């Protein structure tokens, strides 16, 4: 058995007996992301669906001036509420979310065939204000179009003459792409899962081993330090990768449980997507665990190492937030940046779009280069005197 393999087997065996490592790498890491995600999405989707199905409560001022209008609106799902005293104040205090004021001259204007005025009173800064306003406006425009058309017919004109344009929106977003918009944070969760999976082993096998005084005896064995480093890295990477696989499977299952079809989205994390993501993530997982071990080797104690490694895992959040918030068009050069490249590629995969060879090759190559450089630094630290002998 090669020394690196012996170290690998021992690290894995020891970790499999550590409840804390198991909990983090195999349960908490893979499940935390999907659970958080499903909870959040169910809430959001459920809320939107609920709003669309439910009657729209609107305070109507002057309902008696336009009974036909109110009846037509009620047919479209409006629930008329009696007027309250000061509507502006009521709106500000959020006792009322939407009101419709029918003008005093409504009946006169209507009979004269002039446009009759209605005011929609709302607060666009309220959470539901915007979408409720859109619903009410849609109802009113429907009614307006219909009665307008009838007036034209009454005058012997073709209603379509009133429309200069026929506007038909054709959204090119595929159902997958709409789903991926919703799932823009998923790559971050997957990367975070890899971080959590390797973290305990990376800390335990460097700072932890030194703290428990077992590093010095280990280094006295006739084995090159590089071999010891390789074995430990391999073990941490295995746990990290296992975490990632479990996390992906959990997400795949979660995507099935979500009512995404009901809002015309689909998120398909099938075997092909899972396979591609895993392949894409291999070099990144290696880079992640080397970085964790590097940081842990610098720390004086396991507790200190935990703090540093904890901070390290916030790092991938930066590109995630940037990608989902900033209107960035992915450029080829962005794939050269580890973390960002993988996130962009994963987003494409989740949108059901293929990732072409050049960005994929660039992303993989640069991550391998970064991992190689980090390995050389880690090797130097492992070969230094201060690793085992803490002054």
């Amino acid at each position, binding site marked *: 058995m090669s020394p690196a393999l*012996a170290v690998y087997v021992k690290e894995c065996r020891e970790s499999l007996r550590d409840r804390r490592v198991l909990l983090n790498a195999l349960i908490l890491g893979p499940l935390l992301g999907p659970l958080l995600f499903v909870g959040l999405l169910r809430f959001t989707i459920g809320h939107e669906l609920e709003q669309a199905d439910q009657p729209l409560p609107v305070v109507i001022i002057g309902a008696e001036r336009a009974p036909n209008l109110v009846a037509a609106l009620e047919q479209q799902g409006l629930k008329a509420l009696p007027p309250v005293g000061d509507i502006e104040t009521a709106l500000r205090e959020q006792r009322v979310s939407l009101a419709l004021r029918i003008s005093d001259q409504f009946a006169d204007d209507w009979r004269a065939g002039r446009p009759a005025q209605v005011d929609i009173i709302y607060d666009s800064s309220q959470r539901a204000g915007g979408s409720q306003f859109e619903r009410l406006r849609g109802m009113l425009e429907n009614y307006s179009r219909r009665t307008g058309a009838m007036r034209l017919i009454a005058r012997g004109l073709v209603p379509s003459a009133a429309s200069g344009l026929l506007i038909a929106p054709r959204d090119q977003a595929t159902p997958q792409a709409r789903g991926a918009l919703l799932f823009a944070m998923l790559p971050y969760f997957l990367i975070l899962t890899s971080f959590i999976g390797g973290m305990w082993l990376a800390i335990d096998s460097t700072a932890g081993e030194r703290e428990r005084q077992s590093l010095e005896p280990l*280094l*006295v*064995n006739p084995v090159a330090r590089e071999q010891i480093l390789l074995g430990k890295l391999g073990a941490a990477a295995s746990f990290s990768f296992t975490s990632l696989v479990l996390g992906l499977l959990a997400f795949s299952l979660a995507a099935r449980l979500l009512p995404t079809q009901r809002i015309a989205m689909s998120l398909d994390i099938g075997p092909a997507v899972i396979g591609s993501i895993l392949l894409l993530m291999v070099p990144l997982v290696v880079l992640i665990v080397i970085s964790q071990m590097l940081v842990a080797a610098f720390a004086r104690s396991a507790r200190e190492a935990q703090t540093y490694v904890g901070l390290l895992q916030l790092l991938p959040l930066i590109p995630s937030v940037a990608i989902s918030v900033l209107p960035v068009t992915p450029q080829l050069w962005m794939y050269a940046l580890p973390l960002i490249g993988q996130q962009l590629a994963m987003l494409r995969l989740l949108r059901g779009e293929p990732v072409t060879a050049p960005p994929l090759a660039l992303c993989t190559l640069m991550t391998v280069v970064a991992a190689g450089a980090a390995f050389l630094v880690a090797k130097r630290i492992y070969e230094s*005197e201060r690793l*085992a002998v803490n002054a």
Partner: protein
Amino acid sequence: MIKAEQLHKAFGAKVAVQDVSFSARDGEITGLLGPNGAGKTTTLRMLYTLLRPDRGRITVDGLDAALLPIEVRRRLGVLPDARGLYKRLTARENIAYFAQLHGLDAELIRQRSDALIGALGMQEIAGRRVEGFSQGERVKTAIARALVHDPRHIVLDEPSNGLDVLATRSLRDFLRQLKAEGRCVLFSTHIMQEVAALCDRIVIIGGGRVVADGTPEALREQAGERSLEDAFVKIIGAAAVGQLA
């Protein structure tokens, strides 16, 4: 045979070891005696190549430790100052891990482990996880782990630290047995009785220097004292005075 020649080691401005020379012969027990902070651990760490001496040379069976550190470590069985075990592994698994790192095959590992477990009286604890072991059980496991590859040279840093009287006694017997097998045994201690009871040769270290080197009888004669303890105090005291002057 382990040979140290004019070793020198400093950590920053602090000189830990200077001009230390001695040799430990096969078939003998050599004691490195000195008060706490005298430079014993640093000297031993240079012997087993954990630290590189700033100056000087170490050879084990003629092999230069600076040039062939892995070959040298292969010939040494070391019980370092830090003797942490892997608490989630059993005693036997702890021993087997180091045997694997020495490149032993499974059959040989089993044989050597059985022999050491027998010699150290560890039959009862061999299959138990190390977590919860007493200090004596830990030291035994650490010694078995250090000797599993059947080394010719054995280096132990304060082996009796934390052991009770009975455990110390069986440790001494074990070291004598290693000596009888013709091995070179070198250990450090700050306890007088330890060297008096065991050593064929004593190297006294004080303030990072060798202040005396010889058989127990020679040291007694050198100091003109009847007991070894008085000789030790006198020699260390003289060295301290010499440093002050």
